[in-house]
Structures are given as C-alpha cells and as structure tokens.
C-alpha cells in the first residue's frame, strides 16, 4: 500500500478541544469509540462483579452467602449485562468505530451523527437496565424463557426487557452505519479482496446485527405485551406456546453468538499477520468463511432445543447444520496456524492474547461439536458443560481477542506506548486464570451438575472450589491492564506512527490521528498484509 504522507501539524483528535461538551456532542468516530470504551468498561465491571459474587457463593455447596433469590438475580444480571452491554458492542463499537474508517482510508463513518445517536441510545438502554437492577433485579436468566418470564417471575422483567429492547436499536444503527461505510467509503484501489480481514469480519457482523436484532426486539415486545396486558402469546394458559418464544429468541440469540465471535476472529487475523510478519494464509477463504459463518449462523438456532420437545426431525436437521457451521470455523484455525509457518514471530502482548485466543477458541469450538451431536447433547444440555463451552468462546475467544486488539491499537488510540513486560504478564495470567476457572466446569457438566444451580450436591464441591480459585486469578489478570493503561495514558512514551511495523492504512496516520484522519485520501495499490515474503 502507498503510505500517505504524515499529517503536517494538525492537532490530534484528543487535544483538539478538551471540554466535556465537545466530547458529548462529538461526531468523530474516534471520540465516539472512546465514549463506548468508557461505557462498556463500566458495564464489564458490573457484570464481572456479579460473576465474582457467584463464584464466591459457589465455594460452598450450601448457600451461606446469599439466598437463592439473590443468586438468581446475580446470574441474570451477569448474563444480560455481559451479552448486551459488553460482548455484543465491545469490538465493533470500540475497536471497529475507531479503526474501521482508518483502515479503509475514510475520514469518518458514513453517518457520523447516527453514530453518536447510537451511543446515546445504547446509554439509554443501559440506564433502563441498570434501573431494573437497582429497583430489585430480575431472576429469569438472560434467556427470559417463557412462561416463567412472562407470567411467573416477580422481578422487573418489563424494565429489563425494555432496556435490552432499546439497546437493540443502537446495534442496528451501528450495523447499518458500518455496512454503508464499507460499501461507499473505501479508498481508491481498496477493492473488496484487498480489505483487511478485520473489515470483512465487521461487515459480516453488521449484516447479522441488522437482520437479527429486530427479531429480538419483536420477541421482547411480545413478552412485555403478555406480561403487561395479559395477551396470550407464550403462556399456554392464555392460549400461547412456550416453545414459540424459544424459536424466536434463539433465532436472534444464536446469530448473536457470531456477532460476538466474528469481530474477534477479524482482530486475530490482524494480530497473527502483524506479529508473524507474514501474509495471511488463504486470504480469500478466510474472507468467505467469515461471510458463510454469518449466513449459516442463522440456520442453527434449533440446537438450543434438542430436549425441548421440538420435532425429532427438526433436531436432525439442526444438528447437521450445526456441524456445517463449524467447518468454516475449523478452517480459520488451520489458516491462522499455517500463517505462523515461515514467519518471523515476536511475542508482544497483543500476540500472546492472539495465541490465547487460538487455544481457547479451539477448545470452545471442539466442545461445541459435543453439543451439536444429538445424543451427547441430551446428556450435556443445560449442564455446566454448556457453561464452560460458551465461556471458552465468549470469554476465552472474544475477550482475549478484544484485549489483544485493544493492546495492538492502543498506541494509535492514545498516542502512547504501554509497558511491554506487565502486558505480557497480564496476558499469561488471564490465560491461566481462565483455564483454571472454566476447564473444571466441563467435568462438572459431564458429571451432571446443572447450570443456574445455587445449591449443589457435595460431590461437586472440589471442582467448584478450583473454579472459584481460577476466577480469583482471572480477576487479577483483568485488573492489571487497568493499571498499566492508566499509567501509559499519563506517563507512557509517545508512540511512533507504526510501532508494530504493521501494514494497513491505520498505521500511516499519526498517533493519535488528527480529527480528519488523512490529509490526503490514500490510494491502495496492493493486497493486504503485504509483508516481506519467504525469500526476503
């Protein structure tokens, strides 16, 4: 790629105007990314605290820290906040917002004001959800299964459903914004098959956001209609069908799993190529695999219902499709691995996070095969095996990728370097803590411990103690970056434009970039990841 000449003396986006008002009314995608960063870090802290309390309680089989009602509210709070207010927005709204326009040589996203609006909608949804928690909480689990949620639960289901409903519009707005941006604002010469894989992953994610989120909105609205107005939709006593809810909910929520993991895959492609200094192996297949995961992801929701009494034949079809959707994921793992061969590998923190992603995502993906296998799922369904499996994907995969991407682009975002060694230690701590927390849960699930269990039989005690121990290590790992990033923001060394010697247009801008990103529109003349070949 042709590096654009460095910007002259224009002020960077951070120091242009330091007033609070300028931040709250900004339409600069980079500042909006920072607004999202602050918001989702807060939500992550709330959700993680809930998890910590749960793990603390599970230290003993007989609940002696809290009553069941509180425990049930904690796991609901943890799930709702993590899924809708951290995992789904995390990479797209923070890293995507900041990097996407820079990566494609644009000055901003296609609809900068819509971008700001989506942050305010997100905050409104978050505020309603927090209100529901403070006003007494909800104990339905993040899945809101009917008729429990619509008739029997006595928490603030209406408020929490409303919060998620509102936040959904912010997802739709962001998805729409990204799709239009990628279609219309690519720099001259930046053809579809020259796009970095991170852009492909954001594009696929946005498609899901736009297509699936409305279904969630409809589903939540129907719960509110039944609960508030007594109109029978899901409760059989009112003439409704409880399984209808599960179909609608998973029609959104399974694709939502891919909303959470696809951007992580995109980030990891960037990290592996940069730190191996090598072109990605199988670029086109990688791009198409991303897209096909997004599309096939819409056709597998019934695998959440193998024991729900849905038709046996539906089960047979959904199982087959679930195996099918794992093929492109497997191909990606093989391609990342092959990219390392013949590279020139350095072990900076972002790459350590990417390696962690590779290991944990592989375990998460392989254990997904167990759950796609019909007869085996009957045994493992709704046990801790499932909890472990999706945490390997969501936390092991997604959060590792988010951390890796955040470390990787931090010099660009802040204009400062972070200390190398502590970041490496944090990556390793998080990896070890994570495995210690969640690997025992696979065994618990195989032995039959059901999920969402406040009290549990004593034979599950030891493994739960190990898991809680791991959670403590994981917690330490998560606090470490807060410390060194704060230090870096205040005292860190100024970052050069391209500290990792990476390709990609975002590294041709100053660190931090000026408000308009590029003085001159860059022109792209070659493929992405144009690192020196094997002969060099």
């Amino acid at each position, binding site marked *: 790629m042709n590096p654009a000449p460095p910007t002259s003396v224009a002020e960077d986006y951070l120091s242009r105007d330091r007033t609070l008002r300028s931040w709250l009314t900004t339409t600069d995608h980079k500042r909006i990314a920072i607004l999202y960063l602050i918001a989702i870090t807060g939500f992550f802290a709330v959700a993680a605290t809930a998890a910590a309390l749960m793990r603390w309680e599970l230290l003993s089989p007989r609940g002696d820290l809290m009553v069941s009602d509180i425990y049930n509210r904690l796991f609901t709070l943890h799930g709702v906040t993590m899924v809708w207010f951290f995992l789904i927005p995390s990479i797209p709204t923070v890293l995507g917002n900041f990097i996407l326009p820079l990566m494609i040589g644009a000055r901003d996203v296609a609809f900068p004001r819509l971008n700001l609006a989506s942050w305010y909608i997100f905050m409104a949804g978050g505020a309603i959800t927090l209100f529901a928690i403070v006003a007494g909480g909800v104990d339905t689990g993040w899945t809101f299964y009917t*008729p429990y949620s619509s008739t*029997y639960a006595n928490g603030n289901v209406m408020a929490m459903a409303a919060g998620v409903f509102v936040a959904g519009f912010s997802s739709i707005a962001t998805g729409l914004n990204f799709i239009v941006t990628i279609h219309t604002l690519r720099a001259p010469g930046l053809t579809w098959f020259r796009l970095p894989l991170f852009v492909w992953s954001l594009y696929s994610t946005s498609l899901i956001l736009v297509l699936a989120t409305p279904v969630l909105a409809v589903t939540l609205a129907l719960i509110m209609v039944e609960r508030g107005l007594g109109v029978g939709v899901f409760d059989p006593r009112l003439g409704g069908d409880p399984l209808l809810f599960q179909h609608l909910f998973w029609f959104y929520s399974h694709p939502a799993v891919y909303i959470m993991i696809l951007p992580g895959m995109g980030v990891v492609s960037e990290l592996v190529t940069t730190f191996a200094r090598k072109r990605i192996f199988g670029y086109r297949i990688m791009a198409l695999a991303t897209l096909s995961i997004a599309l096939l992801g819409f056709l597998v929701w019934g695998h959440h219902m193998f024991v729900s009494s849905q038709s046996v034949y539906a089960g*047979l079809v959904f199982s087959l499709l679930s195996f099918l959707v*794992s093929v492109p994921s497997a191909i990606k793992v093989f391609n990342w691995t092959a990219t390392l061969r013949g590279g020139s590998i350095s072990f900076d923190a972002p790459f350590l996070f990417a390696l962690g992603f590779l290991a944990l995502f592989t375990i998460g993906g392989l254990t997904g095969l167990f759950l796609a296998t019909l007869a*085996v799922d009957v*045994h493992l369904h709704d046990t801790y095996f499932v909890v472990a499996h999706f945490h390997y994907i969501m936390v092991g995969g997604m959060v590792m990728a988010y951390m890796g991407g955040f470390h990787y682009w931090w010099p660009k975002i802040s204009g400062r370097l972070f200390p190398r060694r502590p970041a490496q230690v944090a990556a390793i701590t998080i990896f070890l803590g994570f495995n210690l927390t969640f690997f025992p849960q696979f065994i618990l699930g*195989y032995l039959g411990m059901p999920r*969402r269990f406040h009290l549990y039989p004593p034979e599950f005690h*030891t493994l739960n103690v190990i898991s809680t121990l791991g959670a403590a290590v994981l917690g330490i790992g998560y606090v470490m970056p807060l410390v060194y990033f704060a230090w870096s923001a205040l005292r860190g060394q100024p970052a050069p434009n391209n500290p990792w010697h990476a390709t990609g247009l975002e590294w041709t801008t100053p660190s931090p970039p000026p408000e308009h990103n590029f003085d001159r529109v860059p022109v792209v003349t070659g493929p992405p990841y144009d690192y020196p070949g094997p*002969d060099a």
Partner: protein
Amino acid sequence: MNSLAPCVLGMIDGSMAGASRIGPAVDAIFWSLTITCTTVALAVGAYIAWCLVRYRRGSAAPRPRPRWPEWWWETIWIAATSVIFLAFYWAGARVYLRMEEPPPGAVPVDVVGRQWMWDIRHADGRREFNALHVPVGQPIQLRLSSEDVIHSFAVPAFRLKQDLVPGKTTVAWFEAMRPGRYPIYCDQYCGASHSEMNGEIVAETPADFSAWAAQTRDGNSSLARGRRLFVLDGCAGCHRGADRRRAPSLDGLYGRTVDLADGGHVPADDEYLRESIASPGRRIVAGYAATMPSYDGTLGVTDIADLVVYLRQLKAAAPRVASSR
C-alpha cells in the same frame, strides 16, 4: 481436595456408565469425540509451538516457500473436517432416534413437574414425590407434563433429559440396568428454588421392587383421588348409570378405538383422555352432541392425571358389561 480423585476416576472408570440401557451408546460417542478432539487440539498445539520456536524473530531457520498451493490445503482441510463431522453427526443422530422411541413393553409413569417438586404416578395409581421406584431391566416410559413453567427432567447417570412444557405432554424413556439410587435434577431454570427441585430414581431388583410395591399400597393414591374427583367434579352425573343419551360410558374405554362424530377414529389413550377432559369439544364421540363443558381451569394438571389413572383401570375393573348398576 479429597473428592477430586473420585471425580476424575469416576470419569475414567465410568461409575455412572452402564447405569441405563442407552448410557453406553452415548458414552461411546462422548469418548470418541473426546479422543478425536484431544488429538486434533494437541496436534495443532504442537505444530504451533514448533512454529513459535523455529520461526521466532531473529532465528536462523530458513523460511521456505510452501510446497503446495494454498487451495490444495484448503480443500484437504474442508474435506477432512466435513468427513469427521458427518461421522459424528450420524452416530449422534442414530442414538437420538433410539432415545425418542420407547421400546415395546415400556411401563408408563406420569411425571408432573411443579415449582419445585416432582409429582410422580405409577400406572396402578401409586404416587411418589421426588422419588421414582423402578425395577431394573424394565423399560419405563415417562409421560411428562408441567403445572406451571418449563422444567427439565434430568437423570445424568442415565444420560436422560427431557423438558416438561406446560400445555403439552412430552415423552422420554429409560431402563435401569443396575440397582442403585440415581439423582434427578431439574435442568431448566424454573424460579427461586430451581436448585432444590431434586429427587432420585431408586432402581431395585424385581424382588425388592415388588416388596416395596406391596408395602406402599395405600388408599391415598392417585387412583383413590381420581375416583373421588370423578364423583365430586360431576363426571359421574353423565358418564355413569344406565342412561346413555347424554354421554358415552367410560367403562372399558381405555385402549379401545373410538368412533368420532366427524367420521374419524382415535385410540382412547392417555392423550385422548386428557384432551377430552380439558377440551372436550375437539374430538366428539359419534352420536353425541358437544355439550360437555371444558374442565381446563377447573381441574389442574394433577387432577386430570388422577382422573386418567382412574379411567385407565375402569377397563380392568369393569370390562364391557358393567353399564347397569
């Protein structure tokens, strides 16, 4: 830490394995998956580790060009994973189909789930709470219904799980192979005391089971309740006695084929009996008008289950002739 060893050993020697008829088939797939996945994960991990060492920045190792074109590798990967995946799909689907089809001769047991207990009825009207006594070697067909929210009847040792969905009856089956006590859990979150909705299956030798059955023959069974409800709720008013103009006799009904007003036929099984109490207008017996009121709302799932137990044995107690009394 002292219970870790049994946990791990339990996994390896499979102290739960073989507890039910279907268990070994499930475990065979589970362990094949475990071995295959572990092998693949270790192989990929070892290859990555080898790359990391050999191709670390600054190492003198030559960086060769790949020998084969990329699409070659992609084809191999796609083909290999697809074949392995299809094999596991096939294995899992076959056993799942077996799980869905109760073997002939399975003895029916009704399970009603409610917040937060298991209410269990044997075919002869004997009733148990949070426990189910069964003889080993006898397939049991569970007919599951819920009085409130969704529950899930899970017996990990038997590799058995089936949701109970309000508004319908779901079916599952098992056959215990070894005497023992096996925990039942509710695996679908169902409210405050979800984690206390437990029970156990007590599998006994046929002799022990008969002894237990002889001990627990009591008057307060489901059958007795059903008989009482049949009178109290007015069923007897129309369905009993010599006058057959308003309603058909129910004696000897169970298991017979019923001619319907619309010309169709239906076997008088549990599902039809339940439906005819809750929504009598849906399938009318030939020769009668749709005059019976719906008892949905008046009678709970439990009451209807008791009535069905009573109706079922009317066949044995009073075959065919008992219409003048």
